[in-house]
């Protein structure tokens, strides 16, 4: 079962038929597992990794460290939810260490991201402080190195 998800996590376009061939499971079993997982949001969504730089309109991204005031009964969850519900927030993780929430914010310009942080995030109740790090270069995304590509360097025929 786990294998089905490993395969799809690496390539969402693999068909149930292909997954069945790769794992030796039956196609019906693969289909029903996937359907089930889509229903209960084990599979949240299928997406594509795009190297936006090649298109010339790379979005501006910033990694923002946020210190939060924990609240009775709900801990950080309520404050976190008020932050991650903004569509500008692409990733949000509760982390250990010197701050509490790490979020990745996306916008069209430096100005837009800066304004979002200072006008929306920083003033929120429970937010004790923020530190904004603008992304300068994307090397690797979801396990894939963006530049270069991995062309086959092997000789075409060997024993």
């Amino acid at each position, binding site marked *: 079962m786990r294998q089905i998800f490993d395969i799809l996590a690496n390539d969402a376009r693999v068909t149930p038929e292909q997954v069945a061939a790769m794992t030796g499971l039956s196609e019906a079993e693969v289909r029903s597992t996937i359907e089930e997982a889509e229903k209960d949001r084990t599979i949240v969504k299928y997406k594509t990794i795009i190297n936006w730089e090649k298109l010339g309109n790379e979005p501006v991204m910033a990694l923002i460290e946020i210190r939060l005031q924990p609240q009775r009964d709900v801990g950080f969850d309520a404050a976190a939810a008020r932050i991650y519900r903004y569509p500008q927030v692409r990733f949000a993780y509760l982390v250990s260490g010197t701050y509490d929430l790490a979020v990745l914010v996306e916008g069209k310009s430096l100005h837009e991201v800066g304004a979002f942080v200072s006008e929306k995030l920083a003033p929120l109740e429970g937010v004790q402080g923020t530190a904004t790090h603008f992304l300068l270069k994307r090397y690797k995304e979801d396990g894939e190195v963006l530049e270069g590509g991995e062309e086959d360097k092997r000789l*075409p025929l060997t024993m």
Partner: protein
Amino acid sequence: MRNRIAGRLDRIPPSGIRKFFDLVSSMGGVISLGVGEPDFPTPWHITEAAIHSLEQGYTMYTSNSGMIELRREIASYLKTTYDLDYDPNTELLITNGVSEGLDLAVRAILDPGDEVIMPDPAYVSYPSCVLFADGVPVRVPTSCDNQFKLAAADVEARITSRTKAILIGYPANPTGAVMEIGDLADIADVARHHNLMVISDEIYNLLVYDTEPVCFASLPGVKDRTILLAGFSKAYAMTGWRIGYAAASADLIAAMTKIHQYTALCAPIMGQVAAIEAIKAGEPEARRMTQEYDRRRRVMVKGLNDIGLTCFEPKGAFYAFPSITSTGMSSEEFAETLLTEEKVAVVPGTAFGQCGEGHVRCCYATSLSNIEEALTRMARFVKKYRRS
């Protein structure tokens, strides 16, 4: 002047793929199922360890036998994996790949005219190395009816007063065949009964699917007569580093080292450093690659069978060895026509011995999309030429 080239070389046929190599190299858009190495780069922690050692200035010779740390790691690996005891000081030798280990093994044990029994088909170097050592390769036919296993009775039938050794290599190149523990035990019985040596090339031993690797030397009563050859090329995706090893009793290792010290001096130090990192910490990555090969293997084998190229299930290495007789072509004809018409490169089975006729070797150490595209092209090809 007499002939510039030694007559000994006339006895060795040219490699069966040279012609294809030139052809493939001259064409664009070829999907190659003809390689014999992993498509993954060496795991980064291994490469990084070697880079670090180069930065530290480790660029010199090592002892002839290889770095003691590497030999100790190999000894402890063989102990924990197969419960085999080899003394890292006297019973292990680090070689320039299994290729050199194989050459040393046959040169160490063969006198001119000594016979070495080996399967047909088998890895191309086996008969050639024996010939270079002035020995005589004796081929035992194997076939897909028996999953290309070497039958002990067939070996026994070819034993003469000149037989010195049996040379086996399972999981096998080109067939992907494995020998289960019982099959190997039968070979061990023959070796013991007729007092023969065994050279066991276990370079693919970690690359097995749905079955456990067996080390021939771990079978009862054969360790002392066995030269175990293994290496890092395949399981750790380290073909270019050139590191293998031989494990055998001290007299054999001493004899092999005698040749090695004069002809190779030592294996490359950066490769040895990389191998130390691989054997200490490479297992998770090796396992991940093996799992990936296993998925491709299933797709390849199912795909070949679906398009009418009957293929027994290979349980090791990264090769499928389908029958192409449904096309009525010979292996060479098939490989050549497939390459020119559909731009898919495979290796004719006859490159590995006469008994490879009727088969081609398809390596699945390539991306799934390549495998699927190759299968699509091959399906079209088989449909066009299918006789039965």
